[in-house]
């Protein structure tokens, strides 16, 4: 199953993410962002990390969650993989993930993502119960 696709946006890059459940949707969104940031190395992940975020509504929670993933990447050079959402309410999320600390040369970095924006951030559910989220990244 395709978990996400990118879509075009004049100066920037959008991601459209799918999930059978809301929980899966958030996990897929985080993995989509990680996928765009860098190629994983061949070494096994260094250790397990926990990421948490809060938000005022669905889109706010998703944006804030992705901002955490992005901060770990920029601030700690930590590329998170196999992201599993362990706790999800209307306003809170926690996830566990395997993390890989990228080397200083940033050899397998793919692109610079400046920020996860609120612009047109959305979460929706279709008649069959499938979830879709859209977020635009400033690149």
């Amino acid at each position, binding site marked *: 199953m395709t978990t996400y696709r*990118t879509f*075009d*946006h*004049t*100066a*920037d*890059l959008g991601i459209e993410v799918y999930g059978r459940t809301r929980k899966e949707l958030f996990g897929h969104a985080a993995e989509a962002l990680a996928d765009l940031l860098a190629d994983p190395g061949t070494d096994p992940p260094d250790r397990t990390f926990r990421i948490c975020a809060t938000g*005022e509504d669905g889109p*706010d929670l998703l944006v*804030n969650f992705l*901002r955490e993933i992005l*901060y770990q990447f*920029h*601030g700690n*050079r930590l590329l998170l993989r196999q992201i599993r959402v362990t706790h999800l309410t209307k306003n809170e999320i926690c996830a566990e993930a395997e993390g890989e600390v990228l080397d*200083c040369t*940033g050899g397998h*970095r*793919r*692109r*610079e993502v*400046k*920020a*996860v*924006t*609120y*612009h047109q*951030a959305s979460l929706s559910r279709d008649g069959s119960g499938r979830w879709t989220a859209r977020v*635009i990244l*400033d*690149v």
Partner: protein
Amino acid sequence: MSDIKLEKIDEFRWRIPAEGGMRVPGIIYSSDRLMKGAGKDESPRQVANVAHLPGIVKYSLAMPDMHWGYGFPIGGVAAFSLEDGVVSPGGVGYDINCGCRLLTTKLREEDVRDRLRDLTVGLFRDVPSGVGSRGPIRLSPQDERRVLVEGARWAVENGFGTPADLETTEDGGAMAGADPETVSDRALERGREQLGTLGSGNHFLEIEVVGEVFDRGAAAAFGLEEGGIAVMIHSGSRGLGYQVCDDYLARLVRHVRTLDMELPDRQLACAHLTSPEGRQYLAAMACAANYAWANRQMLMHWTRESFQRTLGMSPRDLGMQLVYDVCHNIAKIETFPLDGKPVRLCVHRKGATRAFPPGHKSLPPRYRSSGQPVLIPGDMGTGSYVLAGTEKAFAETFGSTCHGAGRVMSRAQATKASRGRSIPQEMSARGVVVMAAGKETLREEIPEAYKNLDEVVSVVDRAGLSRKVAKLRSLGCIKG
């Protein structure tokens, strides 16, 4: 397609009438040709959205390089009353104090023609660039705080350049009101490793030659002569600035909900200039602006050293002088005439450049009669423009003009359009040596991805928002 109502006022101006929640009209400076493209994206709607913000003065403006942004359009200018107006991180952008600086040299094109590749490779070696690049400097937390308050002055005091450089940097390279206490640990963390790096995307360092001079008087004041070699640097506040913007956007999205304020777009989150939140954002933004000035000062210092090393020439013989450093993503408290009286306003320029007129007291003495040098970076391999500020910009656009070409193709479209092509070879055929840390950047930055710079500059020149002084042609380009 935007359903916004656009009324043509004259050859270069379109009005969006104040309707619904708009407090003032919108005014777009453009041409018939550029407007055909602008109508396709959401930027006119964004001009209208900005007009909803409290305390906005006169109108919500957009420059001819206008394109779609977050909250505010890129190319947007808006001024707010200090009493009942707001400041919005989305009106400044993620790359706080993204800007340009231009250096002249005593070299002529014929002096470097055979050394162009060596000079470009030298710059690529000596100036850190690329995605997530780290600089050779490791700042201590104490030094970083000094950078945030002192800006380019910190760099000069630490051996990166000379005090004369500060005279020709906007605000002397240090914006007042910076308070490191308002900057998050995350932003500080990101800032410590990246000082003195060019970055990636549309940032560049370019060797250029003065190709055409339009205004001899101003060109002489700026030290520009036909055939002379110059260097343009385009960079910003790196991860520190992005993080400051991100932190305050999140905070102000929450803050706006506590107020009785209806906003058409969450990305327009803002705070009153009189509120603690508004003041703190301005203090943090000033820190990021100062970081960017220190950053460009260091990039310039290494550029000078790189030229000396490659050409085996002394600083005196090279004579690499800073013409000016000016930013194009900022919010500043400046004084403008309003109903015949001078009034202090908070002017947001997001992808717009300050263009102050001859005689303005903020200009260094040597530019008092020419007006402020305005640096307009072009797309890769096209070159740049140098303009001069005017009275008309001061009267009509809060002393602002365009900032560049503006994208017309998305990055994905550009990547697709460049498939199967060798961009370095194409550039080489135009006589431009290009070096890039990432191949993807070159594809995304192909010249046809941008609006025609000549057209954009022609609009601001003919509309009187700035005067054309000189056009520079690219010779060698470093991309991140």
